[in-house]
């Protein structure tokens, strides 16, 4: 048996990192990341009828969630200027009137039930309650279900994990107020320097 000797290696039990770099504070290129998943955070259903056959959340909550998804769909559905473009991706796009004219929206192809964790104290025969809901759109080119902001939720129906189960946050929304945080820092400004408020 022989051991290979690597003269450049730091001591065996090094307590510090081998290599560190900065990319924003001193510019280079960021790496890409790949990942895996854990706990279910929601489920994708294609229609309100499926509420009766699923066993994850109470049926009446599922039905109410479907109604809410429809309402969100009317508000948040992705809008296309071109009917052709919309149909290419989703099919059966409908025309809607907007302030600035006409645009086209895809049909709601399903909906996402986001789970709230059912704790032991809540009990009941279902493992989850509905924590949130989002309308979904089926991209015919990829087969994926997409949220209104374009995030992909899953390739098909059924359970989803991770943040993909988080419901209905659009990419943008019109800001109607600002500066609702920060008053404590300025009220304590007598503290008196460019030093921070962290500790």
């Amino acid at each position: 048996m022989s051991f290979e000797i690597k003269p450049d290696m730091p001591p065996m039990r090094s307590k510090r990192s081998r290599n560190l770099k900065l990319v924003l504070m001193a510019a280079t290129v960021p790496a890409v990341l790949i990942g895996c998943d854990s706990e279910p955070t929601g489920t994708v259903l294609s229609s309100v009828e499926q509420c009766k056959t699923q066993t994850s959340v109470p049926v009446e909550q599922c039905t109410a969630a479907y109604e809410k998804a429809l309402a969100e769909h009317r508000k948040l559905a992705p809008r296309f200027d071109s009917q052709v473009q919309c149909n290419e991706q989703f099919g059966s796009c409908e025309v809607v009137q907007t302030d600035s004219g006409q645009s086209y929206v895809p049909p709601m192809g399903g909906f996402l039930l986001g789970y709230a964790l059912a704790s032991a104290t809540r009990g009941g025969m279902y493992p989850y309650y509905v924590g949130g809901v989002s309308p979904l759109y089926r991209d015919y080119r990829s087969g994926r279900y997409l949220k209104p902001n374009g995030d992909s939720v899953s390739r098909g129906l059924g359970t989803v994990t991770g943040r993909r189960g988080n419901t209905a946050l659009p990419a943008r929304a019109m800001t109607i107020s600002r500066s609702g945080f920060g008053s404590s820092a300025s009220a304590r400004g007598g503290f008196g320097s460019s030093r921070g408020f962290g500790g």
Partner: protein
Amino acid sequence: MKRIATDPRPDWKAQAEALGFHFHTIDGAPYWDESAYYAFGLRQIEDDIEAPTEQLHAMAMSLVDEVVESEALLTRLAIPPAYWDWIRESWHQREPHLYGRMDLAYDGAGPAKLYEFNYDTPTSLYESAYFQWLWLEQAIERGVLPAGADQYNRIQELLCETFAALASEGRIATPVHFAAVGDSAEDRGTVRYLRDCAEQVGIQTFELAIERVGLSAEGWFTDEDDRVIRTLFKLYPLEWMFVEEYGAKLPGSKLQLIEPPWKAILSNKGVLPLLWQRHEGHPNLLPAFFDEAPGDPVGAGWVRKPLFSREGANIELATADGERLRSDGPYDDAPTIRQAYHPLPDCAGNYPLVGSWVIADQAAGIGVREDDSRITRDSSRFVPHAIID
């Protein structure tokens, strides 16, 4: 553990500035100070700092588990009732946390003593994690330290790993927004550094001043370009957010905060008496009690601290011989606790405090700050360390 004087690198300032460390000097006073370093032995690091850090962290986490279920304890910590459910839910959902720092008094012999947790908005991160590491590498390169010299510091590596794991497991929504008080160079530097770590593992990030966070009609938090903020890293105290205009909007919004709401418990000095009640006599804990007579001068051998306080502000201290010290500050509006006075070691008029970092749930490294007063304040200097056996 020794304080060893050494010559600063001639070009350290130029390097600092090229690497985004613009707060190396603050208001004309030196902050990064490499005219000395602290030398530790490996046994001191592993047995006296790393192992107790993991143990104290575990004790803190089980305390959260208990406090979220107890209205009496939440009340004791002066956490507003409107946020109790939100905090409890964030704990039940195991909303991820990123980092924390505990401050330890350690003189090289005997157990390190926990002064406090900074588990919501800790700073001195960049200088601990990166610039200190660079200092060691260059000290070895220049032959100032032996090739076998080491440092207790995997902070950045663990920060990057944690960001990568949180994003790939879908435990944080991306992109991630980073916010700090707009006119604090130090805090802006700290969030810029954290963004750097996140970008290194492929997470898209945005940065804004906490004062510029907006709200949409639907109750979503937005940035200056009307992007909906999904995950907000805020270097801004949770307890301040609670009492500000947008605070009430937090529980109903879908905003994910880092640090998460349950960290409001561990950034609170009230955990010190609670830990003492549960682990009385633990070698790394100092006796601590809720202050029953906050108006009276603090007794000899005790330190008074507000429940909410940062950067050593509003501390009142009386040594065993009755010498009194106090620091002013803006945190005079909260209940207080008393903690037994355990002096920092005196290294020729310098008083070092060990900041021990926990990233996700792992003990990750240390940064030493020293002051020329026994209260480590925001006038302290950051002095690098090395492990030399």
